[in-house]
Structure formats: structure tokens, C-alpha cells
């Protein structure tokens, strides 16, 4: 997996947390309710369905 810069990481987790808060299905099994925490967990596992396009 390619390494993300800190800004890319922030955007990915932020965008994913917003998706989750708006009802997107979660891709990890967890009891966590906070969308940001869930997004962080998903990021650690590398399952967030978002990537970046570099110029």
C-alpha cells in the first residue's frame, strides 16, 4: 500500500467519517459508535474505499 502524507491521511479519514455519519455501511466489525473512531479503525486496517489522486 502506498504511503499517505499527513494531509492525505487527514482528508481520507475525514471524508470517510462523514460518509459513515451519513449512513454508509461500515467495513469493520466494531462496537464503536463515533464515526471518526470507526474511520480511524478502518484506516488502520486499510479498508477505506478511498484513495488519492496525485498530480
Amino acid at each position, binding site marked *: 500500500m502506498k504511503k499517505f502524507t499527513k494531509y492525505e491521511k487527514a482528508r481520507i479519514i475525514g*471524508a470517510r467519517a*462523514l*460518509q*459513515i*455519519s*451519513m*449512513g*454508509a*455501511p461500515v467495513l469493520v466489525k466494531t462496537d464503536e459508535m463515533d464515526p471518526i473512531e470507526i474511520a480511524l479503525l478502518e484506516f488502520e486496517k486499510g479498508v477505506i*474505499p*478511498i484513495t488519492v*489522486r496525485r498530480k
Partner: protein
Amino acid sequence: MYFKTRLINTVRVPPDLLGCELDLVIKDLLCESLEGRINKKLGMIVVIINLVEIGEGKILTGDGGIYYETTFDALVYRPQIQELVKGRVVEIVNFGAFVEIGPMDGLVHVSQISDDFISYDEKNGRLVCRESNRAISVGDGLMARIVAVSLNETDPGESKIGLTMRQPALGKFEWIEEDRRRAESD
């Protein structure tokens, strides 16, 4: 006239639909947002036939949705001036007859039905020619020519198509048949 056209449109897939089959979701969303819509250049989009290509999904700041630029084939109906149309009368009013000509309705104004003087028979819901005693009522099939088109994008119901039957070989199918026979016997 109907056309098969290749179109490109951006579709917003809301987050709660993520995880479902993307093609189906996008097709559904396209149908929902475009079918029955009118575009001044294209005419009315009747049906989305199939998806050709789904582009890269873009995510914008402050929105959980994903935007896909989608290429698809659609069937569109574009009424053209001078076009001959077959249709069926759906409503008779005192100023003319509304004719269904596919996905849209056109109006044959009383002045455009025949060279005769036309009177409105309110009781029977008919428009009657004074001299020849010909009449049209709801359900009659007829042939007309489009003479005016005014499409309304924001409110498709307000679009207006003007028709005429005051030309040879136009009018109710029965009249055309009568005229042909008479011409033959002469």
C-alpha cells in the same frame, strides 16, 4: 422523432447507497433524475437504455456523497417542426383537441382541424365540422403535422407542441380514407 443518444452526466451517489452494486445504483439514480426530464436541445429523455462507462468517483469537501461522471445511452423524444405524427385524442376542449403523440401531448387548435367552420359540442365532448358534419372526439386516431414547439425544462408539463391537420392527407384516419376513396372514384 425518437433518437438513441449517448450522454454524459454526473451522478451523486449518497453515502447510504455505498456498498450496493454500483452499476445498478447509478442506473437507478439516473432513471430517477433524468427520465421524463426535458432538455431544450435534446428533447425529452424517455428511458435510460444502458450504462456505457462509469468514471472515477470524486469526493468533494463537505459532502459525504461520491460524484461519478457517467456515460450512458438514452432514448430521447425530440418533436421537430414539420414532423408528421400519428396520435390519439385524449381530451377535447372548446379551443381544440389534445393529442397524445408519444411521451408528450400536442394541441390541434380549432382553427387547425379543418378548412370547415368548427363548433364545439359540449354535451358529447366533440368538435364538429359544420359543412361536412365530420367530428372528432376522445379516442380518435389521427395524423397531424407539428408546426410549433416550445419546451419547458423546469416544468415538463408546461411544454407546448402545436399541431395542424389543415393539409392534404392529414386528419382523422377515417377522413383520410374517405378522401382517398373519393379521389379514386373521381
